[in-house]
């Protein structure tokens, strides 16, 4: 009864969201095994998924999530210890759920994926034997997460002959105001010695949290029995008290999973609570409606600028008139409101890149495991916002760049040691805004790209001819890696090496009107820099004139603008080129393509250097008009797709200007040779 398409779509959306949350939290759990909050979140996810999969009658997912819920419940109550095999099983469950979801979205309830194996894996943890084995192996001492200062404190105490105890206190079930009670015990213990830490942290607790057992890490001169007697004697409402020596060796235990996630703008602690609350206050909106809204606001912006223009035009004539003053005021007010509205609508579509970055830790963890490398992942700027549609198209390029970095870039620990580097390689992913552009950097400190090898492979695969290869400079050689069919990897693994990766990166960046750059240093690493417009609906445009017609170019494609004397134009194979900072740049005259005369007012020509993905070329224009925010209007289907225009925009004066499609120009030039004509 619930199988309407809207309902299914909402279900799938929810599953996506929950799985993302689940993945994020297992990764955190791996680092932070005793954080109750994380386990609770995981439990909630399993519970939510169980509920919603039952509602759509998705039996297999319901069963699996039900079992997960049981296991997580045991973890929550401390019956199962969080150890690596448990985490691995949870990861397996996550993968299984993802597969189930994919299958459900394509085939409906006809699911072929077999979940029995994972289920029996889960059962193993539910039944006793495994459980016993694990708990015996696991430390009796509760593992405290201590910061550096506390570690030193504990170590010094032990060294000076004091006892370091883990005191487990169970409060009576009917005890009221447990937090207060716990606090009283804390104060009392402090009289007997020093409490370094309590689990859960009492100072951080709300009154209404129900605690039944609290562990205190206590430094004291008394021994266990003395302590027990004193506590039970003085304190009320205690069910049991148990003191055990704290195993100091635990302090040195660092999680060693081959991959360590460092978040520079950390979101530990209260922050998680905040985000949780925020997530509850969102509304799902059909993206089509947002697009329509954006379109309407775009129209409003255009009309607004027309009003402003007319008001300033009338200013001369009626400036003594009182009601004209009113009109001016209203016009200003409308301007202000429209601008705010426009910003707001743009923001609605913007999402933090976090949702994309959250997939990386898992990816790197798996890559490190299967490649037997040690990789440290550093993620920065995950709150940087970007248009939703762009984020989606950015996913594949990002995955490929990270795979490449892990597979080709980072060396094995042995190789790294031999080269005198830290055996643990670093992959750094960074996002930030710069001048209305979104910048994404993927950087590794691996072996770098060997240019000679690139050249050899390109020759071997027939991507370049031997003649050409001698003419290329370093930068041009480096760009060969973006050519389809290129891969320097010796063997095809399931990670990379098929030679399609960089091609996908280039295609997607192309589609998004973005620019990609590579920097590499042998033995020091490789850096990929991707620059994208913040949004596709409104863009910052450079207005130029070619033969009295105004065109707009997305500023995100403009690399630089140069003025050169026409004598500096050289010819290579009938193609006009100029050399700018040792880089040969071919020139494109749209004049020829438009069949209008090339104008020459003076000896200097204006060249706008444009970039799309890894390509660069110079567009000769007659005049520069300036920068302006432009609203992109697509052509109706009656006009169809045009070679070199991506759409049109309406200028302040109400006239229409076409937007040049930089990718389209590259494509058209390659086939039609716009710039073949002689420069007369």
């Amino acid at each position, binding site marked *: 009864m619930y199988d309407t398409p809207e309902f299914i779509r909402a279900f799938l959306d929810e599953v996506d969201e929950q799985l993302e949350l689940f993945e994020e939290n297992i990764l955190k759990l791996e680092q932070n095994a005793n954080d109750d909050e994380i386990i609770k979140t995981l439990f909630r996810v399993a519970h939510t998924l169980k509920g919603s999969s039952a509602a759509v009658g998705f039996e297999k997912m319901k069963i699996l999530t039900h079992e997960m819920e049981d296991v997580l419940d045991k973890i929550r109550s401390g019956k199962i210890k969080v150890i690596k095999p448990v985490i691995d099983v949870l990861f397996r469950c996550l993968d299984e759920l993802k597969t189930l979801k994919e299958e459900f979205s394509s085939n409906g309830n006809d699911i072929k994926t077999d979940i029995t194996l994972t289920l029996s894996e889960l059962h193993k943890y539910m039944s006793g034997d495994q459980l016993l084995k694990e708990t015996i192996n696991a430390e009796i001492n509760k593992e405290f997460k201590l910061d550096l200062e506390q570690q030193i404190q504990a170590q010094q105490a032990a060294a000076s002959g004091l006892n370091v105890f883990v005191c487990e206190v169970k409060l009576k079930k009917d005890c009221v105001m447990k937090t207060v009670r716990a606090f009283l015990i804390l104060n009392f213990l402090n009289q007997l010695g020093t409490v370094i830490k309590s689990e859960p942290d009492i100072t951080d607790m709300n009154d209404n949290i129900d605690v039944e057992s609290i562990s205190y890490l206590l430094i004291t001169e008394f021994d266990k029995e003395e302590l027990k007697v004193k506590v039970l004697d003085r304190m009320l409402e205690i069910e049991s008290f148990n003191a055990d020596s704290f195993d100091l060796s635990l302090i040195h235990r660092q999680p060693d999973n081959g991959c360590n996630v460092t978040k520079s703008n950390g979101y530990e602690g209260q922050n998680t609570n905040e985000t949780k609350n925020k997530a509850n206050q969102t509304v799902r909106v059909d993206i089509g409606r947002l697009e329509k809204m954006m379109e309407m606001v775009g*129209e409003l912006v255009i*009309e607004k600028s027309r009003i402003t223009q007319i008001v300033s035009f009338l200013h001369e004539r009626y400036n003594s008139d009182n009601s004209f003053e009113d009109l001016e005021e209203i016009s200003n007010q409308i301007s202000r409101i429209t601008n705010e509205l426009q910003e707001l609508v743009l923001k609605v579509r913007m999402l933090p890149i976090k949702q994309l970055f959250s997939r990386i830790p898992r990816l790197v963890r798996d890559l490190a495991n299967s490649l037997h490398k040690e990789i440290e992942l550093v993620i920065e700027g995950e709150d940087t916002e970007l248009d939703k549609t762009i984020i989606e198209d950015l996913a594949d390029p990002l995955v490929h760049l990270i795979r490449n970095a892990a597979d080709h870039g980072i060396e094995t620990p042995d190789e790294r040691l031999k080269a005198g580097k830290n055996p643990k390689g670093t992959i750094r992913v960074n996002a930030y805004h710069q001048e209305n552009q979104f910048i994404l950097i993927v950087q590794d400190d691996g072996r770098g790209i060997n240019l000679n090898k690139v050249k050899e492979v390109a020759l071997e695969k027939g991507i370049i001819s031997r003649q050409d290869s001698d003419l290329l400079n370093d930068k041009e050689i480096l760009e060969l890696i973006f050519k389809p069919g290129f891969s320097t990897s010796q063997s095809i693994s399931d990670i990379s090496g098929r030679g399609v990766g960089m091609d996908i990166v280039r295609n997607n960046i192309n589609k998004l009107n973005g620019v990609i750059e590579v920097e590499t240093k042998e033995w020091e690493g490789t850096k990929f820099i991707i620059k994208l417009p913040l949004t596709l609906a409104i863009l910052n445009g450079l207005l130029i004139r070619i033969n009295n*017609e105004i065109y707009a170019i997305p500023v995100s494609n403009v690399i630089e603008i140069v003025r050169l004397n026409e004598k500096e134009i050289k010819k290579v194979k009938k193609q006009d080129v100029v050399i700018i900072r040792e880089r040969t740049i071919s020139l494109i005259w749209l004049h020829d*393509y438009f069949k209008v005369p090339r104008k020459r007012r003076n000896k200097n020509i204006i060249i706008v250097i444009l970039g799309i993905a890894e390509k660069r070329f110079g567009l000769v224009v007659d005049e520069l008009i300036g920068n302006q925010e432009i609203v992109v209007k697509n*052509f*109706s289907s*009656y006009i169809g797709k045009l070679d070199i225009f991506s759409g049109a925009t309406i200028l302040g004066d109400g006239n*229409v200007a076409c937007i040049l499609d930089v990718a389209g120009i590259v494509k058209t030039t390659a086939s039609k040779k716009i710039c073949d004509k002689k420069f007369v």
Partner: protein
Amino acid sequence: MNELLDYQYVVCELCGEKYAIKINEVYEIIRFKKITYLHNSKSYLEGIINLRGKIVPVINVHRILGLEDYSDTKSTRIVILRFNDELVGTIVDRVIQVTKFSDIQPTPETVDEINGNYFEGLGITQDGEVIAIMKIDKLLNAEY
């Protein structure tokens, strides 16, 4: 042919000749405004205009029918047509009136040397004037 008699028609002028367009195909009629040329698009596509924030393509009917090209005068109008849920403008030299026909005859093979396929039929007014009725879908899908 009979149902064509029920419609009202907008009568316009191209190079001194009168042509009729079914009124329910007309979205609105605007004064001539600056058209932005679209290089390397369909040859009969004159360009695009801004119709209150919408980008609307404008076609050159003169060119399709093989008439002498239009010149921008005070009476020149752009007739905005509804076509497949989109708006398409056509340039006419003048808009004359809205009328009904008392009789409609089938189109001969050519009308003033123009391919007869571009017309629905010949409308005859009460005054006995003969006006060719444009077949919009044929005109807008012209192959040039």
